[in-house]
């Protein structure tokens, strides 16, 4: 580390993190003429370089393209001490963030999710409603491109989807039979995966399968190909391979920018009139806790003591049905078939509150199957080939996505010993699965069995809690009206520092029982809209020349 140098220009808005939410904010604010700078510790990953075009893609999934940063161990990753958690946090560090790695299954939260205290007496109500967020869901759908179909009886009516649903596949149709026999809800998933060409040079899905490894035909939306090109065209500056070490503040505790290590390891400072944190539900509290100062002795904007607390995942159970005939279940994106919300809402007859969704999932390639799919590896030795033949292409799964209520003892803190490649403290996750969640998952497993058996499965394999299922990182800088019981207000603005905003999953009060990214992005757009309307004093005079920095930098990687 060398001495700090000051970047020349003061940004109106400095965004930390170029993933799902940071990109949305960068686009919206740059569209409105704000001078936006974004610091991202990862790099550009070009679609032409995605590993699904290589014969060894299933091996890369185990190594440098693994979902788990502790396994992947790229220079831009930071380790996470997850020894005290039954679920490993997953993330990807790049322009686009974890949208590079996601399956882009994009349901919305329900109105009831915003009122769990009033309805069910647990956790807290949100300081906004589903209908406050609805226009921003719609805007995000348009920007990312949503395949699906309106009319789902489990959800409020919504605007027409940009594209028709993805094909169900033979495996999907087989499972529809099971739901129909039981009279249970199912509906084609909303997915940010193109069923027909949509967006800027983005093709239709060709059903290759592992879209979690990136999509070479750009059918799957990731923010590097949706929001970012427009933001950069608007003049937003995106600096990659820049690792933020702390948010800086003045004597009054007002944010002044961020100190960061650039790609050459030089310590620099980017001054800014406001700072937007978009580094995910683990990275953001980590950075806030690293940003201690006289004005913020417990970490940035942490007078409530709640930064890093109330960590929520969506604990997953996986139930896989094996059928006698081949369903060619490797065909098509793994997680974008359909979903069921039959058991989404609280049922007073049950011994738990809140509910769960089923996300229907496919199998994948042959190595994935041999490695066990959702279970332990297939047997080795003489029985291997028969075991493989009995399962490959014949399985279809039901992921139970459970609501996970916030609890203060589930935390992200700074590890005392573990550090990243820049010698910065790694996050430590302490998490315990609560009884309500366990009961809810068990109920989901039992009902999944019924569906699979009704559909004709001859074997049912259960993974009661997926360790490698920490895709959704939420709650660690929660939103609320009371500064003593929350970190940010309903606009994502820190109670303690009015020029700091948080727009990632950290702000979620509760997590619902759906994949959260559309909600996170809608909240981010709502925060950006607030900044445009209420914080116009942050905006500088427009720059006469668009800064080419981001474009040249991106092209070079």
């Amino acid at each position, binding site marked *: 580390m060398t001495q700090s140098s000051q970047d020349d220009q003061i940004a109106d808005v400095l965004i930390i993190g170029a993933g799902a939410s940071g990109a949305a904010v960068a686009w919206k604010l740059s569209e409105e003429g704000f001078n936006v700078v974004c610091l991202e510790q990862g790099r550009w990953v070009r679609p032409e370089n995605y590993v699904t075009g290589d014969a060894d893609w299933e091996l890369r999934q185990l190594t440098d393209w693994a979902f788990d940063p502790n396994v992947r161990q790229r220079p831009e990753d930071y380790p996470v001490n997850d020894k005290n958690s039954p679920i490993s946090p997953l993330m990807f560090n790049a322009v686009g963030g974890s949208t590079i790695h996601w399956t882009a299954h994009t349901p919305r939260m329900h109105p009831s999710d915003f009122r769990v205290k009033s309805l069910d007496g647990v956790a807290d109500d949100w300081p906004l409603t589903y209908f406050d967020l609805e226009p921003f869901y719609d805007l995000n759908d348009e920007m990312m491109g949503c395949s699906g179909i309106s009319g789902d009886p489990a959800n409020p009516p919504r605007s027409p989807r940009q594209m028709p649903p993805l094909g169900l596949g033979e495996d999907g149709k087989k499972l529809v039979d099971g739901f129909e026999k039981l009279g249970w809800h199912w509906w084609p998933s909303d997915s940010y995966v193109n069923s027909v060409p949509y967006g800027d040079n983005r093709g239709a899905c*060709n059903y290759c399968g592992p879209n979690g490894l990136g999509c070479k035909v750009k059918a799957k939306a990731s923010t590097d190909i949706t929001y970012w090109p427009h933001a950069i065209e608007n003049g937003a500056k995106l600096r990659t391979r820049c690792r933020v070490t702390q948010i800086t503040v003045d004597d009054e505790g007002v944010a002044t920018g961020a100190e960061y290590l650039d790609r050459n390891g030089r310590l620099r400072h980017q001054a800014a009139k406001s700072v937007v944190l978009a580094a995910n539900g683990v990275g953001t509290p980590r950075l806030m806790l690293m940003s201690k100062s006289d004005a913020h002795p417990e970490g940035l904007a942490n007078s409530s003591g709640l930064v890093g607390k109330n960590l929520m995942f969506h604990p997953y159970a996986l139930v896989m049905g094996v059928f006698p005939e081949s369903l060619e279940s490797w065909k098509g994106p793994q997680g974008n078939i359909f979903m069921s919300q039959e058991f989404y809402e609280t049922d007073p007859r049950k011994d738990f509150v809140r509910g769960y969704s089923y996300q229907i999932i496919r199998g994948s390639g042959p190595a994935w199957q041999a490695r066990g799919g959702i279970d332990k590896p297939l047997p080795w030795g003489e029985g291997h080939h028969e075991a493989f033949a009995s399962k490959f292409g014949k399985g279809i799964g039901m992921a139970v996505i459970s609501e996970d209520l916030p609890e203060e003892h589930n935390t992200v803190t700074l590890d005392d010993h573990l550090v990243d490649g820049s010698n910065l403290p790694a996050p430590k996750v302490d998490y315990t699965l609560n009884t309500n969640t366990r009961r809810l998952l068990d109920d989901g497993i039992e009902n999944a069995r019924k569906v699979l058996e009704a559909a004709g499965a001859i074997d049912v394999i259960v993974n009661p809690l997926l360790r490698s299922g920490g895709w959704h990182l939420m709650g660690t800088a929660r939103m609320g009206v009371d500064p003593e019981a929350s970190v940010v207000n309903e606009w994502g603005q820190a109670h303690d520092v009015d020029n700091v905003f948080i727009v990632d999953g950290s702000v979620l009060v509760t997590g619902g029982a759906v994949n959260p990214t559309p909600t996170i992005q809608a909240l981010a757009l709502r925060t950006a809209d607030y900044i445009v309307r209420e914080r116009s004093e942050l905006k500088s005079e427009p720059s006469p020349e668009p800064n080419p920095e981001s474009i040249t930098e991106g092209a070079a990687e």
Partner: protein
Amino acid sequence: MSPVEGGRLTDADRTTLVSVLDRLLPAVDDLSAAGEMGLAQEIEKRARRNPRLRSALISVMDALSLDLAAHAAGGFVGLDPETQIESLQEIERSIRDKFTTFLQMVYTVYYTEKSVLQRIGWTTGPVQPDGFDVDPFDEAILENARQREPFWRKTD
């Protein structure tokens, strides 16, 4: 035979690895067993590139080198196939996590081999850019689902 030194396999280790692969993935139909197919070299190469895989490979090879039955027979390759299997089962029990990672690597390399993919009827190239054919969504399948009244929970 001695425990693997410096993280690199010796020639003796490589011979052992071939036998191990033959036990893990035996011949089937017209395909040779995995060791005989020559996959040991690829496994060693892949393990060299990744610390986690390297650690798993070395742990398994170390455990094999210390196996008492193998010692008595002058090495793992000197054991009869049944005893080799018993030896591997014992190692699987004693270092389960490392063995599982090693097994996953072996399976993955095996199911990347063209002749194996041909046998199981899977595409022999990468999944992109060709992908697979799936019929477009047909709305007729929603006929029943559309009949249901809205049941989302109202909040006001």
